[in-house]
């Protein structure tokens, strides 16, 4: 059965690029345009990995990540942050909140897929 990935980003173009790559690699992709929408997706079918932007309206990526780690079913689910933020402070903030990897945009789909394959839960 295909692994399901939650893709959270307010940029439709980024969701499209990442979505094509992930679906092409055989993953199922669930999309959300901000952290709040992302949290509501956690109540559906099981998510095996989460990819999230940092700077988003309504609920940003770090806030979303903190909420994910409080969720009883998703506290151990790997989260990859996919963001234009390249500063070390922000990265450490993401690490402290529980992120497993930090990819800066613009990104090559192959790089993202490599990180996903290393982290996706069995």
């Amino acid at each position, binding site marked *: 059965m295909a692994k399901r990935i939650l893709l959270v980003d307010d940029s*439709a*173009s980024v969701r499209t690029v990442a*979505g094509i790559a992930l679906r092409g690699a055989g993953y199922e992709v669930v999309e959300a345009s901000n952290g709040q929408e992302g949290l509501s997706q956690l109540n559906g079918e099981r998510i095996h990995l989460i990819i999230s932007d940092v700077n988003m309206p309504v609920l940003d990526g770090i806030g979303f990540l903190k909420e994910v780690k409080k969720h009883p079913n998703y506290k151990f689910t790997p989260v990859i942050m996919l963001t*234009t*933020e*390249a*500063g070390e402070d922000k990265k450490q903030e993401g690490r402290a909140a529980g992120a497993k990897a930090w990819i800066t945009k*613009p*990104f090559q789909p192959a790089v993202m897929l490599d990180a996903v394959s290393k982290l996706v839960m069995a």
Partner: protein
Amino acid sequence: MLAVVSMELSDPNVVNILEATGSFEAGNAALQPANVDGVCSLLPIWSRQVETSRRQTEDAIVALTERFSQIVQRIDAALNTSGTGSQRTDAQAEAQRSRKDLALVVDALKAIQLSRNELVGQIRTLSNYTAELHKMAAEVDLIGFRTNILSLNAAIEAAHAGESGKGFAVVATEVRALSNAARDTGKQITKKVGLINDALAQIGRTNEEVAARDDQAVQASDERIRAVIGRFESSTAAMAAAAQQSHRESTAIKAEICESLVQLQFQDRVGQILAQVVGSMNELTDKAANSTADEAAQLAKEHADQMMSSYTTEEQKLNHQGIETTEVEQSAVTFF
């Protein structure tokens, strides 16, 4: 509208506030109180212009991305339909199977030919026997001839014996009749053996003619089968080559489009930069509206600091500091 903005940017009042917020090189940063209100009245206009540009760019890029995405999906569908090199292998395997099956048919025809040739060989062996029969019939005739001569001599001797030889003369006559019958039988055998020999010879000749025709037919069938299989293989190979070429081209086009999609990520980055600019302008407008002219310099410095902390990209920070931005690094990954 561009002309208006250009004139406004060249306004000395604008220059003053841009210098104060760090957008121009440091120095001569004192704001003239009288100018602050005028400049601040321009900020909402710039903000709206930038926001409109950002939104239009975003809409266009999102639409473009969606179009590209649909093209990629259609190419994927076409690639899945056209298949890959395995179809070529299937066609080649089918051609090889057909070649083997048809070769079996030719082999079967050749086997029939061999069987018939063996039969003819056996018939030829019979011809040898008929030669022996012919010789034996001749010997029977010779024996009859000699017996006839013997009976004649016996009849002569019986006549010389007179009355006492009459009985022997009857025996000699019967022996002569038997010898004549033997000679007739010998001649009949010779005649019949000759007929059989002729028939066998005719069978041999007919078989040779038929065998020659069969050889030609089998050879022609073999050549036709090879030609048909050859044409089939050529056409399937050509079709497979064309399909593979099409597959390669489609894959290359898809890769190009995917790479273009990657490049379109600039919208996300540019959008964030412009959104920050708009937000910052709006904040400055609000702050300026609630501050006095004396507070303007401090306000500008505080706002510049706040701007610095709100940047999300490296080039924003470099631009703020007046440092030339370099090419954006792609796909830096950090695992925690």
